[in-house]
């Protein structure tokens, strides 16, 4: 079964600094990868997804992620964060069967400080 590992449970960073949130997945077959953001007391919102093609994927709110097949990683980056980026970020991968069920990581809390 596929799994997703988000090694950092919390990442503190100062406003306007760059940030990288790490995500590694386990799979021996083709995968589709996603990043979702969850603001306090809200549901999840899709930031970006990798289905095929270019390994650098750009999403909303200035975020981007790079698919690295050899390292089985899909790290999320932003060159300059804002206070409003404070939220929980979830990496997800499809299971690859016909239902394309999403398997989520445990999440990384991004805490942006002034």
């Amino acid at each position, binding site marked *: 079964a596929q799994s997703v590992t988000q090694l950092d449970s919390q990442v503190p960073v100062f406003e306007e600094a760059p940030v990288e949130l790490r995500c590694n997945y386990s799979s021996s077959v083709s995968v589709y990868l996603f990043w979702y953001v969850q603001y306090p007391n809200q*549901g*999840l*919102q899709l930031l970006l997804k990798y289905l095929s093609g270019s390994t650098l994927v750009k999403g909303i709110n200035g975020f981007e992620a790079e698919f690295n097949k050899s390292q089985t990683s899909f790290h999320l980056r932003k060159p300059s964060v804002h206070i409003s980026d404070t939220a929980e970020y*979830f990496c997800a991968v*499809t299971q690859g069967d*016909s239902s394309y069920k*999403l398997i*989520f990581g*445990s999440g990384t809390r991004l805490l942006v400080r002034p």
Partner: protein
Amino acid sequence: EAGVAQSPRYKIIEKRQSVAFWCNPISGHATLYWYQQILGQGPKLLIQFQNNGVVDDSQLPKDRFSAERLKGVDSTLKIQPAKLEDSAVYLCASSLGGTGVRETQYFGPGTRLLVL
């Protein structure tokens, strides 16, 4: 366009009681999902509907959990009887068409359940 609606937003019950959650997906969305998100973990799919048929319920604890989607629109998730470990946020999501990977899932705000 209205998003995915869920009610109630919060619920506190005692163990062995019953509880039900309601979800209204985005209008026209054929696929509906229920996820369980335990504190400190990512969401876990409980059940997936395509219109009013079940696509995947492999992780639904069927001895206590049940879900239905009458007429292929609204859905209800029920827990009977509840256990302490059922304390979690229950998220509903919907997507427009089939179950393909290109279908974006849109999430509701969730129902936070506390079982005492």
